[in-house]
């Protein structure tokens, strides 16, 4: 293949520019790598999820209830739009794990041994399915088995209806229902303290007095069936049996978390790369515009020789596209590598039978397309200039640049400024737009650094608020059934308990017009000492004697304000339905909550001194004894410890966020180096003639370096405060984008993060300065002065 002479020029120009071109390619590759990493991980998870759901027949609708006879199941199957129905007994129990003093919870799910479940089937990783005639054989969820080092052949104790029973593990299993398994009432999964067990349905039913009945139902829909219709009919059908409100798949816990995570991956994968590619486009713009101005006489000559504007425009666009292509290729390779790593991390976090990394062609195509888009965008201005350059005019030398006295000099400070300092100031002042773009570029890189790291600050505050300001209890105890005030006294008398406060939590559907959510309404004493209601800005809240206090997110979901009324359909006991005013709204970081003063809730329920659980403060010295005792109390269904919650929270954060933050950091550092290095190289190329003249006049290398690097310093010093502010604003935007029903991240950027971002940029600036200084030292005085520019 013959390379056309204009293309040879292109390749040689590119070679001369290699340092800058490489820096820009790196920035582009960072953007593309993020794009590929997030989106390929997204696609891998999505594909795995869909396949898993289909193969293991994951349900469309899930309903929990108190107890229903089997004939209700047949009626559910007859509802219009329903394809298949399956009923089960599902019970949460306290486990007795020998080496764990703190109690763990288990969810026992009845299956129709030896048949496989018709819906929500299990995948058996190891071991075998329970055998007929062995009612104590169970399958255990893989997460719990790994966390507790359980294997087929081991056994585990569980408190089943007040009696300790030994369950023997015959297999390790996974289910599409528990890809993400989270203990009821908690926000963070903790595999070491929550396990799922599949066992003989009949035995389980017998143990909980459910023979001939069920308390959980799931179904699949016929194609085209209306989910809301089916749910409404199902709710009516199950209401007499204590239905807790059927949930569509979209609100099923495991699916909901997984979907949230996927949505987050997708939005981060689209938003972050855009920022990087815009910065890259900006850098390309600066570099190419400079090239066009250096080559104005060449362009004029080419036009005189008969090259068309379009040919020249394409020539400079190609230069940009080559840089973009290099970034695209590098980014794709790196992104695929990181994506497979990230998918592996998700494999520990979500439980799939197989999670294979999959890099779809359209993601690669998208990555390459965005890198080209950035390159084209970056070339636009320079290309327009090249095309618009009138050839006759370009033949004439450029008129000398117009300089003015700088602002400081005009302010009467000229006397105090040495000539080099005056040159620095006049240069910055001569091309304010150029100086401003350089400042903007460096500021953008600082803001990216903040954006990449502030999450740690945010999570720190969230953790502190959740686990130290709100939850001042050490232990939360949930009862099997609502109990009387006497149980509170019993709990208070347990060893190690210093203080106890009652909790009456009841499941309810809150409805306002078309909007509704099923939540656990928490009845608390008006001014709790332990589990408090705390507004993130206003502090602890005293619960009013009547009405609901909603978390801001829940109020937003329901679109209600203080003073408005919501319909509260209690899904337990006598199932009263009441219009309840919203008495207050509190802003919280986690979950969606509804609170009520415990007395008011009891009156609404028509109960006396009932409670469903208690918050305890514990003497650490006696904690072990207490935990041991709690495990054996029949009416205790679950115990959660704050310490374990904090630990699992931190572990979760470590698994996901640190990896993301590490990559963000890596990329932000690349960006800041790219920007600063480019700024320094451009000013070197613009000023080398002038600086060489000064050398000839007798200035030392140090002195001319001062002039050039002084400009760089002015740019960096101006950029730092702007970048810090910009970072705060971007962080605010990201926090707003992450506002889900699961989390709201507080907008917090600590001085440490600001200092960190500024330091990285200063280091990048120093390294770039050194690189440019080395070039200055090798400046060929004679050659530079001979060139006509």
């Amino acid at each position, binding site marked *: 293949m013959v390379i*056309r*002479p*204009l293309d*040879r*020029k292109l390749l*040689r*120009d590119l070679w*001369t520019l290699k340092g800058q071109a490489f820096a820009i390619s790196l920035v582009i590759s960072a953007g593309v790598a993020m794009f590929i990493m997030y989106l390929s991980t997204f696609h891998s998870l999505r594909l795995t999820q869909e396949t898993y759901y289909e193969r293991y027949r994951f349900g469309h609708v899930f309903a929990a209830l108190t107890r229903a006879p089997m004939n209700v199941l047949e009626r559910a199957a007859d509802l219009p739009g329903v394809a298949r129905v399956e009923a089960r007994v599902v019970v949460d129990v306290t486990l007795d794990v020998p080496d764990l003093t703190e109690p763990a919870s288990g969810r026992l799910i009845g299956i129709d041994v030896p048949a496989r479940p018709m819906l929500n089937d299990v995948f058996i990783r190891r071991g075998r399915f329970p055998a007929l005639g062995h009612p104590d054989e169970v399958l255990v969820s893989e997460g719990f088995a790994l966390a507790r080092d359980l294997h087929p052949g081991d056994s585990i104790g569980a408190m089943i209806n007040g009696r300790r029973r030994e369950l023997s593990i015959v297999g390790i299993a996974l289910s599409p229902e528990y890809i993400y398994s989270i203990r009821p009432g908690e926000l963070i999964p903790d595999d070491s303290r929550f396990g799922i067990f599949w066992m003989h349905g009949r035995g389980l039913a017998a143990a909980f007095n459910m023979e001939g009945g069920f308390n959980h139902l799931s179904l699949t829909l016929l194609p085209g069936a209306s989910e809301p219709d089916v749910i409404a009919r199902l709710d009516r059908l199950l209401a007499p049996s204590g239905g807790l409100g059927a949930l569509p798949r979209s609100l099923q816990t495991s699916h909901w978390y997984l979907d949230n995570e996927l949505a987050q991956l997708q939005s981060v994968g689209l938003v972050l790369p855009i920022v990087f590619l815009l910065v890259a486009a900006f850098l390309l713009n600066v570099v190419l515009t400079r090239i066009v101005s250096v080559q104005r*006489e*060449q362009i*004029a*000559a*080419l*036009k*005189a*020789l*008969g*090259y*068309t*504007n379009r*040919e020249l425009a394409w020539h400079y666009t190609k230069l940009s596209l080559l840089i973009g292509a290099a970034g695209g290729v590098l980014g794709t390779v790196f992104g695929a590598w990181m994506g497979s790593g990230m998918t592996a991390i998700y494999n520990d976090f979500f439980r799939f039978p197989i999670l294979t990394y999959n890099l779809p062609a359209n993601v690669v195509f998208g990555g390459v397309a965005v890198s080209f888009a950035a390159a084209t965008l970056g070339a636009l201005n320079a290309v327009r200039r090249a095309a618009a350059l*009138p*050839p*006759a*005019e370009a*033949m*004439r030398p450029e*008129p000398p640049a117009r300089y003015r006295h700088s602002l400081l000099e005009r302010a009467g400070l000229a006397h105090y400024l040495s000539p080099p300092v005056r040159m620095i100031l006049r240069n910055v002042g001569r091309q304010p737009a150029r100086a401003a773009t350089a400042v903007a570029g460096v500021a953008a890189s600082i803001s990216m650094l903040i954006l990449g790291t502030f999450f740690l600050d945010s999570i720190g505050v969230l953790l502190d608020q959740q686990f130290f300001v709100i939850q001042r209890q050490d232990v939360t105890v949930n009862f099997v059934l609502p109990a009387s005030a006497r149980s509170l006294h019993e709990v208070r008398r347990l060893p190690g308990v210093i203080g106890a406060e009652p909790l009456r939590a009841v499941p309810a559907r809150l409805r306002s017009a078309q909007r509704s959510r099923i939540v656990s309404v928490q009845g608390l004493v008006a001014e709790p000492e332990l589990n408090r209601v705390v507004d993130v800005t206003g502090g602890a809240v005293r619960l009013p004697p009547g009405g609901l206090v909603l978390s801001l997110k829940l109020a937003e979901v329901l679109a209600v304000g203080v003073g408005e009324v919501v319909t509260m359909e209690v899904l337990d006991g006598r199932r009263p339905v009441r219009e309840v005013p919203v008495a207050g709204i509190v802003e919280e970081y986690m979950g969606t909550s509804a609170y009520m003063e415990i007395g008011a809730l009891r009156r609404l329920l028509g109960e006396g001194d009932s409670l469903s659980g208690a918050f305890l403060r514990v003497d650490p010295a006696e904690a072990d004894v207490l935990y041991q005792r709690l495990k054996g109390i029949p009416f205790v269904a679950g115990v959660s410890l704050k310490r374990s919650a904090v630990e699992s929270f931190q572990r979760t954060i470590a698994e996901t966020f640190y990896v993301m933050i590490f990559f963000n950091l890596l990329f932000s550092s690349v960006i800041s180096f790219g920007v600063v290095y480019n700024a320094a190289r451009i000013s070197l190329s613009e000023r080398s003639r002038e600086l060489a003249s000064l050398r000839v006049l007798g200035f030392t290398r140090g002195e001319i370096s001062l002039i050039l690097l002084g400009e760089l310093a002015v740019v960096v010093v101006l950029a730092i405060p702007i970048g810090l502010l910009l970072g705060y604003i971007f962080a605010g935007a990201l926090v707003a984008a992450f506002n889900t029903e699961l989390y709201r991240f507080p907008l917090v950027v600590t001085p440490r993060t600001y200092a960190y971002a500024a330091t990285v940029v200063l280091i990048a600036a120093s390294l770039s300065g050194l690189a440019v200084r080395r070039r200055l030292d090798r400046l060929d005085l004679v050659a530079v002065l001979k060139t*006509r520019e």
Partner: protein
Amino acid sequence: MSSPPSAPSAPKPSVFAARDLTKVYRMGEVEVQALRGVSLDLHESEFLVLLGPSGSGKSTLLNILGGLDVPTAGTVTYRGQNLTSADERALTMYRRRHVGFVFQFYNLIPSLTARENVALVTDIVERPMRPEEALELVNLAHRLDHFPSQLSGGEQQRVAIARAVAKRPDVLLCDEPTGALDIATGVLVLQAIDQVNRELGTTTAVITHNAAVSGMADRVVTLSDGRIASDRRNSVKLSPAELQW
């Protein structure tokens, strides 16, 4: 050695016809009146020298003839084609097909070798010379793969001439081709131009502020302050070597 005197009596057909050209342009903050009503005809195979001090408007006139610039008022036609009313695209095509340019500062592409600089042109025109052939014509066959920075000023200018003639242009326009060169080198460059004019019959216009160069022309036009001050034919045409600097 002297060339035979050309016959002043038989005017050849007009290649260029310029009528009442004026040109005003802004340079920084100053307005410059470069041409103040210039009318001129340029004939087939003619060797024209445009003489005048700097600022007299000769470069502006050459740029307008070459389709690099358009006049503020007046008309120029090239073989009957109106260049004044042509759009940017038509002017580009005109330059591409018919015009060879040689500039005072050579304007070679520094990142391309001598051969590649010539190929730059041969690449976009029909029926060009081979780059090697064009460089042979200016006696640079031995410097094909040198970059401009490895060539002397005279050699660079000869590469520029090779680049201009490789397309077999109808007109060759040279703006101070010897302006940046010493006498001996300048003569070599002028010989190359003269050779192209004689052997290929290319209509040639050379701008210079050096009156001695006018000795090698068929016709000498002197510009002064944007106007034609004189227009004469040489009865005797000297070879470049015979010029007295």
